[in-house]
């Protein structure tokens, strides 16, 4: 079997991609209008929503960047994942029920629709939509690039595709992504998410078992090796220190309820009462998949320190080296398929919300109504958005990474700082005002932009995203407290009372 390692891995990835294409074709028959395309007609069951929710949370970053971060900075990066239980809990307490109710009451198909209804403000809709588009470009470009780099690494190991170029890999991976997103919209997306989520859970569990067998003394021997080398790296705050760790706890924990691609999925379930089972199922799936992040990272750091393997060229190689050195080919195939699954599930979620912002929300905010024939234009814009993001990814790789890096700043942290107060608090506090919301969004965007552009490094590893989040919360509540309490429409008043 070892002799066919590369072929097995390629086979697993190809099977997965064929599955995505077939799902796209199947979902196309169920997609009749823009509501189906963007929010699956609010008719999904709890298992589908749970798997879609957690698989979109753990992107390619979780599979590649996560183990790389543990290799690089030790336990510090654990804070991004141990907070997931709190993050999911807050997301459900603060957002899940009311976003679903508002979506029903006002027939919303996007997050900007919901905030526009809540604040009765097209300015808030516009700002949230622009934030989403900027964030989506950065996220999509990095996800497509990651997918192409991994594909090139896999294919170049075979005789037939030994000389395959990165551009070809970008084209192949983008084509599959575009096909199933365009044909089936969010319905294709969530049903591929179901399989993606299952693969990720299986991969996480099997990787943990493999990782525990690398050293005779299991995980404890690995952590002892790291401890002997640098105690701080395996202590609770890791190499990056206490403030970086707590910053991640804050931004990733509270911020989950501000991620547009996740909260949009909370609008898709058929019944509000399903939320009580969606929460534990999502969290369980996430924890199982995240085992991969923790276990590969710890084992790879220990293995390099102990001289079991050579030092890595890049921290992000941790997962791929682990798979090639320590796992059997079948497991490597499953994990690589899981990696594609993770990247694609996040990418399709972003393509979907980005398209909604462009064809539905920005025109509505500016002209007072969205464009005609939304379903047709949704498909057109999905293609354009993916092509622009793919071009962007290639330009960044070959020419200049600055632009993508800047837009990359509009990632999790910016979404968290700009959307969390407006959505999560705003849906639970009638005193929140449009001016408070605008102040929060603008301050979050400005601080993240300035920190990124000026390359500001704060002492003790304090994150720019943490500062943006705290300022945004203060402005949102503070400005709302000093401005006139808004008069809510009767339906909004009723929803906020329930």
């Amino acid at each position, binding site marked *: 079997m070892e002799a066919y390692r590369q072929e097995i891995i390629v086979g697993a990835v190809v099977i997965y991609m064929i599955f995505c294409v077939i799902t796209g074709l199947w979902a196309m028959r169920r997609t009749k209008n823009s509501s189906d395309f963007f929010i699956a007609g609010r008719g999904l069951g709890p298992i589908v929503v749970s798997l879609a929710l957690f698989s979109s949370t753990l992107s390619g970053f979780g599979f590649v960047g996560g183990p790389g971060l543990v290799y*690089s900075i*030790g*336990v510090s990066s654990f*804070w991004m994942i*141990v907070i997931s*239980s*709190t993050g*999911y809990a*807050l997301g459900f*307490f*603060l957002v899940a029920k009311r976003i679903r109710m508002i979506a029903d009451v006002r027939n919303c198909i996007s997050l900007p629709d919901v905030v526009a209804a809540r604040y009765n403000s097209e300015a808030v809709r516009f700002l949230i939509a622009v934030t989403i588009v900027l964030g989506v470009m950065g996220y999509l470009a990095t996800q497509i690039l990651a997918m192409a780099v991994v594909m090139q690494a896999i294919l170049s190991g075979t005789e037939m595709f030994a000389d395959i170029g990165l551009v070809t890999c970008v084209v192949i991976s983008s084509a599959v992504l575009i096909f199933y997103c365009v044909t089936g919209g969010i319905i294709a997306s969530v049903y591929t998410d179901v399989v993606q989520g299952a693969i990720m859970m299986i991969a996480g569990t099997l990787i943990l078992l493999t990782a525990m067998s690398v050293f005779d003394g*299991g995980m*404890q021997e*690995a*952590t002892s090796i790291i*401890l002997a080398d*640098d105690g*701080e790296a*395996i*202590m*609770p*705050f*890791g*190499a*990056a*220190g206490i*403030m970086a760790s*707590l910053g991640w*706890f804050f931004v990733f*924990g*509270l911020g989950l309820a501000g991620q547009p691609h996740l909260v949009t999925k909370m609008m898709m379930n058929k019944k*509000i*009462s399903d*939320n*009580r089972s969606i*929460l*534990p199922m999502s*969290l369980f799936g996430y*924890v199982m998949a995240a085992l991969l992040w*923790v276990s590969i990272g710890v084992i790879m750091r220990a293995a*390099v320190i102990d001289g079991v393997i050579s*030092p890595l*060229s890049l*921290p992000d190689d941790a997962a791929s080296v682990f798979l090639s050195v320590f796992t059997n080919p079948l497991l490597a195939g499953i994990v690589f398929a899981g990696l594609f699954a993770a990247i694609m599930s996040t990418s399709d979620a972003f393509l979907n919300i980005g398209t909604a912002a462009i064809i539905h929300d920005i025109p509505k905010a500016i002209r007072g109504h969205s464009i005609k024939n939304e379903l047709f234009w949704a498909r057109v814009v999905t293609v354009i958005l993916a092509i622009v993001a793919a071009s962007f990814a290639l330009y960044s790789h070959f020419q200049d990474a600055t632009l993508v890096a800047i837009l990359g700043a509009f990632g999790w942290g910016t979404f968290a700082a700009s959307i969390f107060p407006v959505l999560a*608090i705003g849906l639970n*506090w009638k005193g929140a005002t449009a001016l408070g919301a605008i102040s929060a969004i603008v301050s979050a965007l400005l601080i993240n932009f300035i920190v990124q552009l000026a390359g500001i490094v*704060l*002492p*003790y*590893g*304090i994150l720019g995203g*943490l*500062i943006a989040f*705290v*300022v945004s919360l*203060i402005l949102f*509540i503070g400005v709302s*407290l000093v401005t006139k309490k808004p008069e809510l429409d009767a339906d909004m008043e009723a929803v906020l*009372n*329930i």
Partner: protein
Amino acid sequence: MRSKLIVVIFTTVLIMAGLLIAIVLADSVPNGAGLPHPEFNGMQAGGDGAARLEHIGSLAFAFQCLLLLLIVCLATLGVAEQRRSPELWAYMGGTLLFSLFVWYKMYSGHQAFLETGITNYFMGFPVATAWQVYGTWLGAIPLIILYTVGFRKYIFTEEDERKYEQLLADIAERSEQ
């Protein structure tokens, strides 16, 4: 009357901002956010753990205590005001105490390691890290239990569902007229 809970949340965030400013202004140390590993390229090392907590340790400890308070307050904000019974407040108080206990065990376990240089292990990790890995994950379980088990009592009661169905029916009726 303004909700007192939002004022508590606002005050908590303001104090956290004050702590962040104090940390930014505190004396800095070279390894505050880690240093390049002396031997392996791409790895960071923490170095002297006691030195990097010397000026900010207590501020950071207080920051996290407030963050845990903020999390519990926000979860409570997610429960409709009329459902925030004394029983719920007691439960949320217990959740906060549990989270604070986990945080204290983690922080004090780390301090003990810094003083002695030795540690026990629990399920593969040094004890302080085990509190972080397992304890933090479990710290939110009371919230998840409340949401799941108490869904029909605190989150979306039968009465809420009836009101909601009525609201949808009213809207549908108005749109037909």
